[in-house]
């Protein structure tokens, strides 16, 4: 590996999960009232990149696909210590499923060039598929390591040693650079913005915005047009944003029985936020 280490972090801006609902009439997603945030696992990916930069030197670029309101979020990443930020913003990119999304991001990564390590959060809080990191790796023909908890760079060999979580334990993988690594949520504590970096929150420059025309992509392969999967139906889950506060009463035995029924129904159905069943 020659030259400095160039790490690229993919960030997604998502609505805060607990604030999203479904419009009962139109049966579409009601994100209007939800505040936006940087997908929490992506903050862990950014922290991982910045920690690697502290340790090995190099630079960190941010990449995101979304509407212009993402720009202030990218500035937060710059204030934390990233060096450059790129936003892919175009109506043509909208409505993309994971195939089209990973294709678009991969194309931008190629354009940015000289990337040694692509870092992503393990999954996003909205779709929660975890498919984009392996997808990016496949489009770029790069090795992938997911659910990383610790990353070490062996500069001379041009490899990374990644400790990652698997069911019931961990394994250590050795991958040549360039590679795509997705990090486990909460694997680190994202640093606060640098005291000197905070000024970047107010700066108009430092974020490069690209449209579909700036990328080497076939328009029919991006966005909704490029998505093989589509939504056939949508509904609000019974256990949704905000707690139910349902009172359970009766004798202790009756209460226990009701709890048992709820617990078994819940564990068999939707709503996992945890590592175990997502990995």
């Amino acid at each position, binding site marked *: 590996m020659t030259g400095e280490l160039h790490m690229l972090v993919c960030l997604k801006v998502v609505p805060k999960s607990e*604030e999203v609902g479904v419009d009962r009439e139109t049966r579409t997603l009601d994100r209007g009232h939800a505040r936006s*945030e940087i997908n929490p696992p992506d903050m862990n990916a950014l922290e991982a990149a910045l920690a690697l930069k502290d340790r090995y030197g190099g630079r960190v670029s941010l990449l995101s696909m979304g509407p212009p309101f993402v720009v202030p979020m990218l500035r937060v990443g710059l204030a934390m210590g990233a060096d450059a930020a790129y936003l892919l913003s175009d109506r043509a990119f909208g409505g993309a499923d994971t195939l089209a999304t990973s294709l678009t991001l991969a194309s931008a990564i190629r354009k940015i060039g000289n990337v040694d390590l692509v870092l992503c959060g393990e999954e996003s809080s909205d779709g929660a598929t975890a498919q984009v990191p392996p997808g990016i790796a496949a489009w770029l023909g790069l090795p992938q390591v997911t659910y990383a908890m610790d990353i070490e760079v062996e500069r001379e060999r041009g490899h990374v040693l990644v400790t990652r979580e698997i069911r019931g334990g961990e394994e250590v993988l050795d991958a040549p650079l360039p590679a795509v690594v997705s990090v486990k949520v909460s694997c680190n*504590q*994202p640093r*606060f913005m*640098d*005291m000197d970096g905070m000024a970047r*929150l107010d700066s108009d420059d430092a974020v490069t915005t690209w449209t579909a025309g700036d990328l080497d992509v076939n328009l029919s392969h991006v966005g909704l047009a490029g998505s093989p999967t589509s939504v056939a139906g949508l509904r609000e889950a019974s256990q949704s944003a905000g707690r139910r506060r349902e009172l359970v009463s009766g004798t202790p035995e009756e209460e226990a029985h009701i709890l048992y029924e709820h617990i078994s129904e819940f564990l068999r159905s939707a709503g996992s936020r945890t590592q175990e069943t997502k990995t």
Partner: protein
Amino acid sequence: MTAVTEAATSVPNAILLDDNRWDRVLAATNGEAAACYQCGTCTATCPWGLVAGPSIGVRSVIREAQLGIDGWADSVWRCTTCGACEARCPHQVPIGEVMLGLRSLAWRERTVPSGLANVLWDMHWDGNPWGRPPSARSAWAAGLDIPRFDPATHTTLLYVGCTASYDRRAQKVARAVVGLLRAAAVPFGTLGDDEPCCGDAARSLGNDAYFERIVMANTVRFKEAGVASVVTVSPHCYDTFASHYGAAGDQFQVRHYSQLARDLIAEGRLSFSGFDATSATFHDPCYLARHHDETEAPRAVLGAIPGLELTEMARSRAETLCCGGGGGRMWMETPADERFATARVREAAATGASYLVTTCPHCISCLEDGVSVSGARDLKVIDLAELAMLAGCASASPSSTEAPHD
């Protein structure tokens, strides 16, 4: 590597002094630590000596930071900025500010304890250090119909603060303060869900750069909202606005609600029915008693409640024993056997009082925890406003035609 460095690294236990570090500490502490002549009065005064064997060792912290000795940062985070040390320092070293300056250095060097970055992220994304949604900020006022602050009709902005807005226990205090204001017919409003965080947590945790951004943003907001006079629920918010908003803070007058209550009582606009012989003792919040020399306003209110017998603890007024919640400590963990509040509650219980009265949301939280840990079950921790409401407050002079000048 220079010859000196080479020589130093070959000597066991040698510490290589870094001139840059000395300058960084000097800069971070505005040179204030330079006046310290290592007398140790601060160390002897610090409440940490009461609860844990070794005190913070204030003077060693400063020395170690100056010399760049490993581990200097650990003690710095234990400081609650109670001000007891600086009240006694013969050279008037502003020790609290020195501690915060050293914390600022820790942020730059990234040696901040685990979890504190999250507190600041909560402030950045949610506008409060508790990580609660902005849309829930005025939930505490449900059913009270508190108007949005309007400079044309309101003489005072009630600044609730993040803790009283979101903490369930402290919300009761906010409601009691509203009760007092209404009893005295004070025309007031709040900024509702748009109330910004005063920034105290950022300042107390030492992130001066972030605090300055908050000050600038709030200064604009208050100006746009036409705020001229502010009353706070918490002494910490009061202190932040009064002492740390710089020139911006001169744009508006700020008081703690106990000070407004004292004035209202003096003007005959607030009085109380009282109790049948109820005993109380008063815990002075550090941020009123020492940081602002304010010890009499809460006592004036207590004194105006008929039937209330006030017994003072030995450590009262400027001698008050810190509850342990200041200096950002509300966001850090203190082992149960090292909490100042446990000792304080024992002092309170020893007076035989039924009520331990205070007037700060952090003190309430720490003291109630102290009651729980020390098992002083007969002692009830209560806020001044809550006690006043319990005593039955009434507005006096209903026919007064004098325009209120709160």
